[in-house]
């Protein structure tokens, strides 16, 4: 996927005036946020579980090499095959090769953010394969040739009317006068269209929410069951996933699943939680003949041992997006790449560079709500600040802001000079505010006054008034003693 993160400001400006998008974004708070809050309140040990989840991920990432080797061994023992992909290009080549080897014409896919990251659909279509997304949200946006705007709800930026129009345009074999107003009608229509695709596909590709080293299993969680059909019906199942998804044991996976579902959708557990371990064995009633795992690095090992290592704990629940006021204002597409919101503001510069994605860690008020809800306690604002430091040190901060910051820092370090200049400056600003007590326009503060007034200062600084007050009190005391 070609990033547009450096156009964040333009993307955001467009999003803010997109009436349909704003209507769709309005529903996020009510839905995800309230559901998570109820799920948290219903589970007294929720915070203890989060600590446990964080500890599990930290431990795994500290010993990632060992667990990856164990995982590969177990997958091989179960009759599967592990492929190592250092880059997106490597991953796409491996997957295309497996599809060719299976003489595949058509591929079904479960939802996978890593597949979006490496641009898998384009690669496979380029190799002449038909690729069908089977997650309803992904199916909807695939038909619109749009990337997902949310990591767990890819089509959250759309509303029902848009989806109805798209279905009518796409499914021309169905009667034009059919009723589609109920969500159930849309789901039913997608199901009937997809059923045929499921039966025809030679290869099914899914992501993985977790990989279990102990057993060589991969697990996916869905609420539609499409993931099961994608991985069980075709002859070949390919799991495309990134290296940090690993956990040591099934018990650990269980802990993480408990915080994942509650953080993501407010569910105790998702409707489908499916583990796959190797290919079909003798006597198994169903399952693929071949089982491949493509382990994608694509920049992640470069994060190990750096201040950004904590980001590798992320389990892609989307809670930080749902609770982020910036995400809620502009939606996911404004972020310009696969991963939006606070997690994207840290991960995107790590994977595609701060030159491309420097806006993302800057576009935050550091309100801290993302860190507050993160199930694995990733210090997201702190890491955004690290990106700002890298950008500042590399000279990426603009000249005018740099001069302004430097001057302010100079005065902040020199209290006497600060007082000397602050007094007259504030008096002048107070005069400009006049009797209205506010300014509608101020040079160099256009960003502020374009949308709101600047409250005028009172006229004298607190420190000046305080010193005058102290002097007056001393005088009164001296007079009293006489």
């Amino acid at each position, binding site marked *: 996927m070609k990033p547009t993160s450096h156009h964040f400001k333009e993307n*955001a*400006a467009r999003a*803010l005036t997109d009436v349909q998008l704003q209507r769709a974004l309005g529903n996020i*708070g009510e839905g995800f946020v309230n559901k998570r809050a109820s799920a948290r309140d219903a589970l007294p040990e929720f915070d203890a579980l989060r600590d446990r989840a964080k500890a599990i991920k930290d431990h795994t990432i500290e010993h990632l090499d060992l667990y990856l080797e164990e995982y590969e061994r177990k997958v091989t023992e179960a009759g599967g095959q592990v492929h190592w992909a250092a880059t997106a290009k490597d991953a796409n080549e491996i997957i295309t090769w497996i599809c060719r080897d299976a003489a595949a014409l058509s591929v079904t896919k479960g939802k996978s953010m890593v597949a979006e990251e490496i641009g898998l659909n384009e690669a496979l279509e380029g190799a002449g394969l038909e690729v069908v997304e089977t997650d309803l949200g992904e199916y909807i946006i695939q038909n619109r040739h749009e990337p997902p705007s949310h990591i767990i709800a890819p089509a959250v930026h759309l509303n029902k009317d848009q989806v109805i129009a798209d279905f009518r345009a796409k499914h021309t074999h169905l009667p034009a006068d059919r009723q589609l107003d109920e969500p159930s009608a849309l789901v039913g229509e997608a199901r009937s269209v997809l059923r045929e695709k499921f039966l025809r596909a030679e290869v099914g590709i899914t992501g993985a929410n977790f990989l279990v080293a102990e057993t060589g299993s991969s697990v996916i969680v869905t609420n539609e069951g499409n993931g099961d059909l994608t991985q069980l019906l075709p002859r070949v199942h390919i799991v495309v996933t990134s290296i940090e998804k690993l956990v040591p044991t099934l018990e650990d996976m269980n802990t993480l699943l408990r915080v994942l579902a509650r953080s993501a959708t407010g569910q105790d557990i998702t409707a489908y939680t499916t583990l796959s371990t190797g290919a079909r064995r003798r006597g198994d009633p169903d399952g693929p003949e071949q089982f491949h795992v493509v382990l994608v690095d694509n920049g992640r090992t470069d994060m190990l041992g750096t201040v950004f290592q904590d980001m590798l704990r992320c389990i892609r629940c989307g809670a930080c997006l749902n609770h982020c*006021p*910036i995400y809620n*204002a*502009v939606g996911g597409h404004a972020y310009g790449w696969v991963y939006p919101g606070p997690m994207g503001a840290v991960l995107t510069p790590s994977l595609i560079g701060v030159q491309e994605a420097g806006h993302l860690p800057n*576009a*935050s*008020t*550091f*309100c*801290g*709500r993302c860190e*507050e809800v993160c199930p694995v306690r990733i210090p997201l604002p702190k890491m955004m600040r690290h*990106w*700002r*430091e*890298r*950008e*500042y*040190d590399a000279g990426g*901060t603009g000249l005018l*802001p740099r001069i302004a*910051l430097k001057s*302010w*820092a100079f005065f*902040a*370090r*020199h*209290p006497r000079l*600060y007082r000397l200049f*602050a007094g007259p400056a*504030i008096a002048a600003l107070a005069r400009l*505010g*006049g*009797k*209205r*007590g*506010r300014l*509608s326009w101020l040079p160099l*503060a*256009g*960003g*502020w006054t*374009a*949308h*709101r*007034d*600047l*409250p005028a*200062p*009172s006229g004298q*600084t*607190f*420190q000046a*008034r*305080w010193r005058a*007050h102290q002097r007056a009190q001393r005088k009164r005391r001296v007079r009293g003693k006489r």
Partner: protein
Amino acid sequence: MTTLDIGKTSRTVPESPHVALFATCLVDLFRPVVGFAAVKLLEEAGCRVEVPDAQTCCGQPAYNSGDRADASAIARKVIEAFEPYDFIVVPSGSCGGMLKKHYPVLFHDDPDMRLRAARFGAKTYELIAFLRDVMQIDVVNARHEGAVTYHDSCSSLRENGIKQQPRELLESVDGLELREAKDSEVCCGFGGLFSVKYPNISNSMVSDKVDRLTETGAPLVLSGDLGCLLNIAGKAAREGRPLEARHIAEVLADMTDEPPIAGARE
């Protein structure tokens, strides 16, 4: 002398603690009455209050813009000037969080300064948290007729653990009715330089915030952070909304003679 459990560490609070007020640059420049209100509240709580001369800004603009060198130079100055006192009190959750939580982070490769910053942070408090949690004040001597709503600033809420304290103190004000706004834990869109660097996103956020506050029907919004208040009051004034804004200390100290923030002057 009384010994209190404050957070996880127990601390000895002297009978009449020597408190340094760090007024913050926004209070100093924009709203001096908040400084006076803070002094009054602290003195009524039994503190001996001083306003050290060597104070300017806590260094947040530099720190949050990635200029770590300047941020730590400022932090060093503040620590040196303020560490002789029993407590450092700040009428702002945001600057309080900076002094308390972020100063120690700035000195990770200077063990001596890191320790000093940690000790300094441990005795630094946001004003309302200090009055309620350390001085154990539960009643203030103030009167305010009418309804108010309270805006939780993000840094008060998440960096200083302040949620109930301002509400408890407001309940004790004679004649005051507190009305909760919807989405009270959502950011107002100020974020320091964010409001200037991303003005239209900030505008979208503050518009929502002003809507939620106005919906309560209360004619006055209070908060512990002047940054949020300048943002909210500036937006309400631009749109001619029936919403006035003041720092919570002004109401708690019964010092509401000044026109509200962004309000017309006589």
